[in-house]
């Protein structure tokens, strides 16, 4: 159902290289490689370096993954350890839920 051209723009907000952040990034990369090969961009924002960016995406929790495109905007917080939830959150596997 997704267009081939559609690119997942993902932003991962972290605060320093904490264990949770590292886990989250590793998890995210793994899922993307598996399900969105060549259709994704991951931008990692370290709020310790750019604190002013927290306001724009209403970031409270760390780590937070924000999917801006495709719509709708979704935020996934936590270390992304639950693959199922992440994929649902990213609208990668909507079909599976309806089955």
């Amino acid at each position, binding site marked *: 159902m997704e267009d081939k051209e559609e690119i997942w723009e993902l932003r991962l*907000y972290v605060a320093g290289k904490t264990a*949770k952040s590292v*886990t989250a990034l590793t998890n995210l990369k793994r899922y993307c490689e598996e399900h969105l090969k060549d259709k994704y961009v991951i931008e990692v924002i370290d709020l310790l370096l750019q604190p002013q960016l927290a306001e724009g995406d209403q*970031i*409270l929790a*760390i*780590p937070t993954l924000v999917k801006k495109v495709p719509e709708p*905007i979704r935020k*996934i917080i936590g*270390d992304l350890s639950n693959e199922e939830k992440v994929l649902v959150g990213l609208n990668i596997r909507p079909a599976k839920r309806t089955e």
Partner: protein
Amino acid sequence: MNTKSSDSQTSLPYLRKSRTGIKGLDEITIGGFPQGRPTLICGSAGCGKTLFSIEFLVHGALEYGEPGVFVAFEEKTEELTVNVASLGFDLAQMQKDKLIKLDHIHIERSEIEETGEYDLNGLFIRLGHAIDSIGAKRVVLDTIESLFSGLNNEAIIRAELRRLFEWLKDRNVTTIITGEKGEGTLTRQGLEEYVSDCVILLDHRVENKISTRLLRIVKYRGSVHGTNEYPFLIDEDGISVLPVTSLTLSHDASSDRISSGIPALNKMLGGEGFFRGSSILVSGTAGTGKTSIAGSFANETCVNGERCIYFAFEESPRQIVRNMRSIGIDLQTHIDNELLMFHASRPTLNGLEMHLLAINKLIGQFKPTTVVVDPITNLITVGSVSEVKSVLIRLIDFLQSQGITVLFTALSLNDNISEQTDESVSSLVDAWLLVRDIEFNGERNRGLYVMKSRGMKHSNQVREFVISDNGLDLVDVFLGPDGVLTGSAREAQQLLEQTGVALRDHAVSRKDREIERKRMVLESKISGLKEEFESLQEELNKTFIEEDLKKEVYEKNRQEISRIRDNGKTTE
């Protein structure tokens, strides 16, 4: 910031405080909220939590040089700016001036999916950034409880909140956290668990359809504080907390005197009248002339070129002006000269606290030297006895601190001649005049007593209080053998006395005349006796003369005879 200046005085570590700048609150908390620690403000919806925190920030930024961060979890910053604009706070401008930073944290639950471990470092970073960007000393989190509805993992939130408050303490910012009141707890999510330094509870009660806002300090670690429920008001000037007392009784006492407007009354009060800055209560039953005394007092103030505010709770200003004119007191001129101000309102117009505020405000604007409240008894319709008393205490306190003389009138009911006024304010006031009906001889007359007058000699006698076309006067009552006489009985007695005097005068003059007559009689008798004596003397003299004459004649005759004899001899 004077908490800091006094810091050097003592080596003991003690709690520093941040002044809130909210009228009255700093007095209750003795200096403000604990500096560098979180304070919880809780209360039900619409009780003024947000406003309290905004005022805390704005005053901090404008008056105490402490910029502040406002983190809004519920309202958008634009909405907030508009909402407080009505109080004259220009948040937009203050944001530009870097005095205040507004940050809206919005948690859209539908957008959020939670998976695995996380923390709220994002919030910390945002807050930290906001604090650093303006060098904030004050932070408001309004209301952080939204986190609980936005996120699922309560265990994480609670752990993070605990960390957040510790972190805020470490950053040494004075924080206000607001919380919605919960069932049986101070806040819905038990925030009081984390904020243990200072907890303030706001309440909004509606009794008898009249609302009162109340504030109470539930706890304040490391500081003494007022523990009562203090009413507070929100109006166009923001929040004002009205402490029941200013916690101290330390106002100056003037020994200046101020005339009551009735010379005879002044005479009863040591000859000069009331003390300036004192409080006077005039109580009495209906129709005893309380308002007339009040009007006369107001008039006297204005005649002396001073200002007076007349708070009328029963009659309209025009009515009072007209009624006063009938006893020869012209208040209209004083109104025209802006010496007298009337403020008339029905007590039921608003709650007691609003009345108090209205009075406070007008006094602040008009700056009178005397104030008349006529009558305080009507306030009872909007509050309980103790509330009225509490309001009056604060009013008297406020007025005395300003050196304003106040005259209250109070209606006492006929069956309540225990000489206690309903509001039992008689113990608060400095001088208490009681106007009382004296029913005697088929008529009612007014008797005026000075029940008390602190700090001056005053007459203990009852005077008859007479209202005439020429104003008010006090007449000495007649103390006859039948007791105190007033009114026509007094006049009758006076007439009787005059008659007595006339009769006595008459009697005296009659006696005088009698004596005069007696004197005349006596004198005539004396002259009669004198004449008798003279005639006796004359008689006696006559005999003597006759005898002399006889003697003379006899001698002559004898000589003649002897001569004749001699001659005859020769002729013989």
